[in-house]
Structure formats: structure tokens, C-alpha cells
């Protein structure tokens, strides 16, 4: 083992640099990365640059159109939309990361178990996945969020609870692909425990599709969360979450277009950034993967 290590390391280094160089050549992927970095920076330092406190009401400027004082206009309570959009970024990112962590955790665990052990366990898990998939995820998430009672945490749980199915399918498929490889058989023959084989040999070999899927899943999580908040079952007002901001503007769409328009653009740009990044990562890791994910 000790002799093999440097070679292994050298291989992974060159593989990694290949991935980086493929990624760099893809302009849209780089653009995606830049957008995502801007959004993350905006989340951290944005609130310090917001021209007004997000909850501050100014009754002299109710439904004011965009101007130099209020870059994106004000809402029905005279609150600055720009400041609210800036403060809202953190919720969107928190939701994206929260949901994806939950989905990746449940999906990986069940997918690994189903793929690795096979047989009855696999049958039961995958039939459960089939059943969940025949109920539209959004409908199920709405039902769970409603039953749990709305709010940020409950919304993350609701989306996570329905979103893991695709992840489990992907992980299971990847495990099945490598399960019969010689190195796994060798590890078994050496008497390795199943848990050790999964952690040491299976997970490291399926990590690339997992990273890609996680990145590609963030946009879906953000869009679902926005939809739930829009329907009144996610983050509640006055929290400046973007979906909730769009919902607030809906009643005023006839005379104050700016309330719903700007938070929508913010969601779109964020989702676009993650989509470009995810697509780019997929192509960079393995051009063949694009057909599977």
C-alpha cells in the first residue's frame, strides 16, 4: 500500500488539474462561478452596504418607483426593496445549502444501502422512492410544510424530505456501477467490514457525480423554496425572503411593477449562476456524465 501511494497521489493531481483546466475553458461555467461568488459575498457584506434598514417603513414614500434614493423603489409600507433584496440573499443561500445538505445526507445514506446491499433492502427502498415520485414533489412538500406549520426550518425539512429521491437513485446507480470492480472484491476478500468498504472505497469513487448533483440541485431547492414562500407556506412576512417579497408585490402588480420584478430577477440570476456552475462542473469532471445527470 505504501508503495502505491505516491503514484495514486500523482494520478489524482493530474486528474484534478485536468478538471480545473476543462472548467476554466468553459466561459459559462466561469461566469456561473463568478455569479455564485458575488451572491455569497453579497450575503456576507451586502447587509453592511444596504442603504436603508430592511424593515424601516417610510410613509412619505409608499409604493415609490425606482429612484436614486430608492434604487428598486419601495413597497406598500415604504420599505426599500433594494435593501430587502440584499438582506434576502442570506435566506436564499441558507435554504439552498440547508436543503441540499439534508437531501444529500438522506439520499446518500439510502442510495448507498440500497445499491451496496441489494436484494430485499434495495427493493423496499426503491419501491418507496417510486411511490414518493408519483406524488408531485411540490405537492408533497406543500402538504408537509402545511402539516408542520410553515416557517424557514419547516420549509427546509419539507423540501429535504421529498427531494432526496433523485439523489438516492443517482447514488444507487453509481454504487451498482462500481460494486463489482476488482478493488471492492479485493477489499471484501481481505475481510474488510462493509462499513469500512463503503467509507473507504465506495464513497471516494462516487464523490464526483455527488458534487455535480449537489450543485445542480441547489437551483431546484431555491426555486422550490421560493414557490413555497410565494404560496404562503414557507418563510413568513416580514422576513425579506425573495419568494415572499414577490408574493407581497403580487397584489400591487397593477401599479407597482418593481416590488415583484426585482426579487424575481435576484432569484433568476442566482439560479442561473448555480446552473452554469453545475453544468460546468459536470462537463469538467467527466464529459460523459452529462448524459446521466
Amino acid at each position, binding site marked *: 500500500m505504501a508503495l502505491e501511494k505516491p503514484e495514486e497521489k500523482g494520478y489524482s493531481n493530474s486528474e484534478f488539474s485536468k478538471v480545473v483546466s476543462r472548467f476554466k475553458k468553459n466561459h459559462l461555467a466561469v461566469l456561473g462561478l463568478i455569479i455564485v461568488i458575488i451572491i455569497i459575498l453579497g450575503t456576507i457584506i451586502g447587509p453592511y452596504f444596504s442603504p436603508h434598514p430592511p424593515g424601516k417603513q417610510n410613509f412619505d414614500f409608499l409604493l415609490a418607483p425606482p429612484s436614486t434614493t430608492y434604487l428598486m423603489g419601495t413597497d406598500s409600507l415604504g420599505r426599500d426593496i433594494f435593501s430587502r433584496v440584499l438582506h434576502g440573499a442570506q435566506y436564499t443561500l441558507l435554504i439552498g445549502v440547508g436543503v441540499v445538505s439534508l437531501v444529500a445526507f438522506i439520499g446518500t445514506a439510502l442510495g448507498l444501502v440500497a445499491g451496496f446491499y441489494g436484494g430485499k433492502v434495495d427493493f423496499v427502498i426503491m*419501491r*418507496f422512492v*417510486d*411511490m*414518493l*415520485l*408519483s*406524488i*408531485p*414533489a*411540490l*405537492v*408533497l412538500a*406543500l*402538504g*408537509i*410544510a*402545511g*402539516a*408542520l*406549520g410553515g416557517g424557514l426550518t419547516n420549509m427546509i425539512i419539507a423540501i429535504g424530505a421529498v427531494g432526496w429521491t433523485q439523489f438516492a437513485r443517482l447514488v444507487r446507480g453509481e454504487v451498482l456501477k462500481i460494486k463489482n470492480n476488482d478493488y471492492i472484491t479485493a477489499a471484501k476478500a481481505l475481510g474488510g467490514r462493509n462499513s469500512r468498504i463503503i467509507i473507504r472505497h465506495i464513497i471516494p469513487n462516487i464523490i464526483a457525480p455527488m458534487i455535480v448533483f449537489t450543485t445542480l440541485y441547489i*437551483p431546484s431547492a431555491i*426555486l422550490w423554496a*421560493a*414557490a413555497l414562500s*410565494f*404560496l*404562503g*407556506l414557507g418563510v413568513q412576512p416580514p422576513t425579506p425572503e425573495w*419568494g415572499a417579497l*414577490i408574493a407581497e*408585490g*403580487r397584489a400591487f*402588480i*397593477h401599479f407597482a*411593477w418593481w416590488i*415583484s*420584478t426585482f426579487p*424575481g430577477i435576484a*432569484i*433568476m*440570476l442566482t*439560479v*442561473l449562476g448555480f*446552473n*452554469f456552475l453545475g453544468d460546468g462542473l459536470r462537463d469538467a469532471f467527466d464529459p460523459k456524465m*452529462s*448524459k446521466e445527470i
Partner: protein
Amino acid sequence: MLQYMVKRILMVLPIIIGVTVIVFALMHVTGDPIALMFGSGVSSEMVAQRRTELGLDRPLPQQYLSWLLGVLRGDMGRSIRTGDSVANMIKTRIGATLELTIIALFITIAVSIPTGIISAVKKYTVFDHLSRFFAMFWVSMPMFWLGLILILIFGVFFQWLPVSGRHGPIWTSAGFLSFIMPSLTLGLPPAALFMRLIRSSMIDVFNEDYIRTAKSKGLSENVVIYKHALRNAILPVVTLLGMRIPWLFGGSVITETVFSWPGMGRLLVDAILKRDYPIVQGIVFIIAILVILFNLGVDILYAYIDPRIRYD
């Protein structure tokens, strides 16, 4: 083919039973619906009395069985708030949802297939780049926001289309106009996804030997594209269609809310917000059944297009 269809239909039954369990559990395991509905301001005696009235004090398996038997007879219980029959409420609204979903599906197909084919045939041209760029935008837009922006442009600014509601059947002119924005909102975002898939799948097929053979025997470009390439390239698209059907029904919930469309989706959102669990249970169940039936249709279509499936 008949044998395949029978096999496929039999496979659906356990899934339907599983779905009823999930739907029932969703409403009953996550908390006491009555306590949640009344909130904290009501005495526990009243809550207990209401629970007995609605049969919620019985053991869960018993409640589940009586609900299931009711569903089999077409009785889905009554709304806790209004006392109306859930089955009747669904019956009056299911048509509007189905109309919207089917038209949206038609738009998805009508937009994505031609753009996907042209993009593949004219790979790396301006058309290809533009359509792929726009596709990425469509995919990244929150659906309800797209609906609102359409309302803003065509309803408020130009005042060409009604901003909400269903103004009659689609074959009347008022009805037709009221269908345009909701069906575009529901149909365009998946079209972008389909277009990308059709493009990549066509490009793959173009590299196959049988396409080269077809070309070399002197067949015209159109015959090669439509008769040889499309039929093979369409297979992954049909798979995606099956996978996207639940999404379409989920999307209809959002679209119906944005456009105040009188379908099941809006009723569902209202019922969830008011915690009227018999309605929620009924609608989620019906939507799941519709998804299963549509998927069955897609599978049979798949077997029809690709004979290899039937003999697996």
C-alpha cells in the same frame, strides 16, 4: 404488446396502495389536524368532541381503512370547514386542471421539438447559441414570477389578455385568451429542458452508423432527420416526459394560484392554509393517481415507439 400493457398495469396497483398510505400518513402522523386547526384558543373538551365527531379518536389503521374504503366507493369525506363533499369539490375542478395541464404539455412539445431539432441540425450557429441561452434563462426563472411578468406585460401594460380566471371553454374567444398566459407559464419552463435534451440526443444520433448509411444511400436530408434520426432521438425525450409529469402537476398548483384558475391546485393551497385535511388528502391522492395514469400512458407510448422494451 397486450401482455406488456397488462404487466405494466398490474405493477401500478401496489404503487397506488403505497401512495394512499403516504397521503394518509402525511395528514395524520405529522400532528393532530384538529388541534392545529383550532389553534390554542379553544378548550380541550371542544377539540376532543370534534375529534370524536370526525372519527379521529379511532386507531390510525382503522381510520385509514375507512378512508380507503370510502375512496373506493368514490367518497373522500367532507370538508371540515364547509361540510361539502370532497369528491364533488374535486369533480367540479378537475376539468380546469386537466385542460390547463394538457395544453401546457402540448406547448412544451410544440416548442421544444422544432427548436431542439433546428439547434441540433444547425449546431453552433447563431440560432443554436441563442436558443440554448434562452433555454437556460427559462429554466432559471421561478414559474410564479414568469406568470407575474406575463401578467405585467400582456395584462397590465398592453391589456391584451385577461389577468386572471378562466373565461369559458377554450374554443370561445374569451376562453382562448384566458388560456394563453397560464398555459405558457406552465408549458415554457419544461420546454427549455426538453429542447436541450432533444438537441443533445439528436446530435448523438447523427453520429450513428445507420444515419451515415441513410445519407450515403442518397436519402434527402429531411428524410434522414425526420424518419431515421428523430425516431431514435425521441426515446430519451419520452423518458424525460414521464419523469416530468409530476412536475407539470406540481407546477399547475403554482400557475393556478398566480392566475386564480378554478382548478384543483388552488383548492389544494387554500385547503393546506386552512388545514382542511380531508380536501388535502383527496386532492393529493387524485393528483398522484393522475400522475400514475399519465406515466402509464408514457410507458405504453415508449413500448410502442421502441419495440425492444416489450420483449425485455
